[in-house]
């Protein structure tokens, strides 16, 4: 694997996370419990999809085979996606959506902070832009997790159930493979495992305030970020997201 092949994989991971989560969050548009939340969710999705254009745009540039962000987003099938399994999990109820967002935002802000000092300037400048947006997302998702966790009996129970359900998908964020090793050696991206202490500290703080209990298990579902085994949910998501480009290839506005 050359440097650029590894960099392409890394950029697809970054862009596929924001693309798939952005799409998932956008599924709430017009369905959120109140108007303000609907707007907040749609804005979050918009930021994530904007970041996707930057990451996948750069991926296409590094690959050098003429694929742009749209081609990568709409013309690949499930096995070519490199997102964490966490972000393809269905929305569930509002609480689960916000818990998933919090678990992702916490990791995303820490990672983007590190990427701002990447040896690859094109990665550093996207991280600089995205980290401002991610910090704003984290502020909201953490606040909401606390409000709902430390809320009514019903909201507390739902948030605990959401955390229990999503917890096995957290571990995948911190597992390294050859791509990560290559990125770390080049100084392009940090070793994923090195983010864990800061992540655990942040989660511990927020979830304690939310009166929620972190499950006592390190079991982790894997296979998303290396594309080995996505969940069945990704394929269903793609049938919606890619429908127009599949039915009318290369259709443009």
């Amino acid at each position, binding site marked *: 694997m050359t440097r650029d092949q590894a960099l392409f994989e890394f950029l697809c991971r970054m862009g596929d996370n924001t693309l798939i989560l952005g799409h998932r969050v956008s599924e709430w548009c017009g369905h959120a419990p109140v108007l*303000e*939340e609907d*707007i*907040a969710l*749609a*804005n*979050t999705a*918009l*930021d*994530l*999809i*904007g*970041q996707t*254009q*930057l990451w996948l745009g750069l991926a296409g540039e590094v690959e050098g085979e003429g694929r742009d962000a749209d081609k990568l987003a709409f013309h690949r099938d499930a096995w070519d996606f490199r997102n964490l399994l966490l972000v393809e999990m269905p929305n569930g109820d509002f609480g689960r959506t916000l818990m998933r967002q919090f678990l992702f935002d916490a990791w995303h802000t820490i990672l983007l902070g590190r990427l701002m000092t990447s040896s690859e*300037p094109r990665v*550093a*400048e*996207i991280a*600089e*832009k*995205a980290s*401002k*947006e991610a910090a*704003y997302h984290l*502020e*909201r998702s953490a606040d909401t997790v606390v409000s709902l966790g430390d809320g009514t009996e019903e909201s507390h129970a739902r948030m605990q159930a959401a955390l229990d359900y999503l917890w096995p998908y957290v571990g995948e964020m911190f597992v390294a493979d050859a791509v990560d090793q290559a990125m770390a050696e080049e100084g392009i991206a940090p070793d994923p495992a090195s983010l864990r202490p800061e992540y655990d500290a942040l989660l511990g703080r927020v979830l304690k305030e939310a009166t929620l209990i972190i499950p006592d298990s390190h079991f982790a579902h894997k296979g998303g970020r290396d594309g080995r085994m996505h969940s069945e949910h990704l394929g269903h998501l793609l049938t919606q997201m890619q429908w127009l480009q599949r039915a009318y290839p290369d259709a443009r506005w």
Partner: protein
Amino acid sequence: MSQTQDRPSVQQIWDWLGQVPDPEIPVISLTDLGIIRDVDWQGDTLVVTVTPTYSGCPATTIINLDIETALRGHGIEKIELKRQLSPAWTTEWLSEAGRAKLEAYGIAPPQPASGPERCPHCGSTHVEKVSQFGSTPCKATWRCRDCLEPFDYFKCI
């Protein structure tokens, strides 16, 4: 040589860009918003460097189109638009004039304390947050507890 003499000065271009309204908040101009980072002649091509406010802001494409249209209207033929991500846009780049225009329009300008200083309608400091997000990526939704009017707050980033 004659081309160099004929072409409008960089200051002139900045003045023209100062007349191009933001497509979503038309009371302020693109220069008020602080997203035009550089204007430079490279030979007979005018290079305008623009930075996005938010990475997913749908206005970005329209803004580029508006810049081109305005400059072509002033007779400039060769225009290159360059996207610059770093340094990332910050609301500190909003001009003083832009901040005043926002408030007069009913949008509270950004404050480092991350909340509006006062209601843009009645001036009361008795305000509360309704949502961290609003009608465009750059705004949040607030409400005045005295005049009871809702209003937009320009997020501080």
